[in-house]
């Protein structure tokens, strides 16, 4: 419309008197992020420095690329199948727009990134799911990329590290999404049959079809503190059984108590723990 083009700008001089910028404005100010667990407001830069962990230990969500930065040795990551993109196979209403907006906001083409890298000097194949792309939901492309990664690792006898965060199967792709559960599980099995190591790190939230397939098939299952790990969400269960669920229901800590996971690892410890595990499981031929 260009309504502003109709108006002229007055050239009044700035009124005199009083202060300009408030007295304490010389300091560097920046945005703070409030912790949903304890309410403490951490400056954004401090939060990034602290790997998006509040001083109370609450882990904020983290993008896949940010995880790459602290989990892998600098400059060793090579991305695989980075150009694969989902299509609206079923003609699901609004899906193409959703995909487009997710690509723009997350700057990723899909909800998982795959590749090879070194962690503490040990070569491995890895996949990291992206929470900012449709909450890491698993459609055909996510399933295909993860399957290909396991096949690639099996062929080259590489261990696999997987970092999961997912709302489950992608409903916009219907049964095709559900099929990925079987497909990825098959690839994990063949990788395992070759005696190769698969470490999985569950982060908040890992749910639905992802939990029901490759997320829980690791040889060693690690989790982030406070991560929700479940198949069906707590609200649905509560509505179905009409009972109040116990505190910490579906939390990583409860899962650890019941033997579903092996270890809870705070973010700052993850690189050290994973590199140690990879080192201990290094195959003889790969060591030379």
């Amino acid at each position, binding site marked *: 419309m260009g*309504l502003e083009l109709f*108006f002229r700008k*007055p050239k*009044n001089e*700035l*009124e*005199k008197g009083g*202060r*300009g910028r*408030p007295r304490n404005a010389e300091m560097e100010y920046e945005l703070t992020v409030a912790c949903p667990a304890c309410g403490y407001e951490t400056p954004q830069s401090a939060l990034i420095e602290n790997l998006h962990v509040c001083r109370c230990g609450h882990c904020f969500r983290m993008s896949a690329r940010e995880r790459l930065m602290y989990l892998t040795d600098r400059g060793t990551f090579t991305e695989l199948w980075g150009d694969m993109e989902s299509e609206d196979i079923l003609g699901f209403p609004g899906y193409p727009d959703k995909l487009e907006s997710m690509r723009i906001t997350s700057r990723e083409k899909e909800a998982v990134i795959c590749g090879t890298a070194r962690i503490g000097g040990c070569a491995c194949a890895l996949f990291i799911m992206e929470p900012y792309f449709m909450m890491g939901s698993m459609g055909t492309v996510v399933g295909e990329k993860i399957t290909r990664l396991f096949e690639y690792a099996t062929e080259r006898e590489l261990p696999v590290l997987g970092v999961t965060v997912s709302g489950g199967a992608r409903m916009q792709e219907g049964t095709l999404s559900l099929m990925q559960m079987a497909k990825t599980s098959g690839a994990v099995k063949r990788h395992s049959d070759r005696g190769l190591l698969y470490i999985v790190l569950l982060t908040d939230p890992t749910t639905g079809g992802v939990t029901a397939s490759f997320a829980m098939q690791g040889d060693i299952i690690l989790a982030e503190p406070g991560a929700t790990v479940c198949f069906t969400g707590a609200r649905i269960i509560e509505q179905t059984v009409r009972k109040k669920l116990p505190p910490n229901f579906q939390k990583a800590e409860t899962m650890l108590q019941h033997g579903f996971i092996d270890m809870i690892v705070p973010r700052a410890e993850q690189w050290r723990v994973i590199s140690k595990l990879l080192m201990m499981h290094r195959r003889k031929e790969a060591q030379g």
Partner: protein
Amino acid sequence: MFSKILVANRGEVAIRIIRACKEMGISTVAVHSTADRESLHVALADESVCIGGPLPSESYLDAGRIISAALITKAEAIHPGYGFLAENARFAALCKKHGIEFIGPGADVIALMGDKDLARRAMKKAGVPVIPGTGVLGSADEAKKAAEELGYPVVIKARGGGGGKGIRVVSSPDAMEQAFHTASREAQEAFGDGAVYLEKRIYPARHVEVQILADETGNTVSLFERECSIQKNNQKLVEETPSPAVSPRLRAKLIDAAVRAARAAGYLNAGTVEFLLDKDGNFYFMEMNTRLQVEHGVTEQVTGMDIVKWQIRIAAGVPLDVKQKDIRLDGHSIECRINAGGVGKVSFLHVPGGPRVRFDSALWTGCAVPPFYDALLGKLIVHAATREEAIRKMQAALCELVIDGVPNNIDDQIAILSDPRFKKGDYDTSFFA
């Protein structure tokens, strides 16, 4: 003086603030939702930032986005206008934290006045008459006992209250139990605080408020009263100053009480102390609004003081250039709020003119009125030597105002102005009862 101000509002009040800034040589930053992309306030500002979707919660109520916009554009101060974040203590504190001046009182004063129970107690201590009532009540039985002492009818009010939520009128002991619980539940849902207290019901009464300006040097002055008794569903429709019910003697008492209230709260910048005035001339403190009022225009007309400019100057540390004795009340001013009765697009707009006729509005021919916000389309304000002349001027101006394409209340306003009770100045909050 600030060289750049961000206006954290929309509609006519955003324009009112931008106009003041233009006169003062201050650059302006408008923020807007996606629904307000083609708004007049965006077009008039020097810069604009889109801060989110059409719902207020996605844009004008999102403190983080507004602070971000101010930091990006390097605005030195934020004017919150009225509504939205204007009385949000957390937002005021957030501005300070980020080195941005909040144009209004400090966060602690906003928080004090937002807690109706604390505010009542502070006013009582300062010797300002408050409506007879209780502190926070623990149970319906306690409320019953207190109501017997006060005498029915009573009103149950929420401590965290505002906007008519958590308020119940109780006329007999039988109704107390249920009213207590519903009011408490409603308050819990609306404000996250179920605490309620009792007040004697003063009805019918007049709603009279006093405009205050206070600077850093401790100079607190009053710009006299405004009469706001013409209300429908707790929404003011017509305001005037001076109030036809206030004699010079009563005015002196009101001013004294309002200034005392502001001083007791350690008030800085512009604010309004609301009183209920009963038929015997007794008045009681109701609440203090820690922001610019919609109806500030009538006060500007009769005192010749630009309240918005003074808000900005006080925030920048400029002392007031007047003492109470220098402020004169000149003539009579009336404001009619022109509200939308639905959404639409303005196909033809004619704004009345002539001496001492003012129309504060964000309308332009071709603009759309979106459904997401307040219904206020504009404020028609007139000023004349006498009340009678002001009513005549308003009648003429209303008849000349045309807003085609959007359902509005111009005809209702003409009816109010023609009502014999209004003409005589003999009306109170039961006007529409």
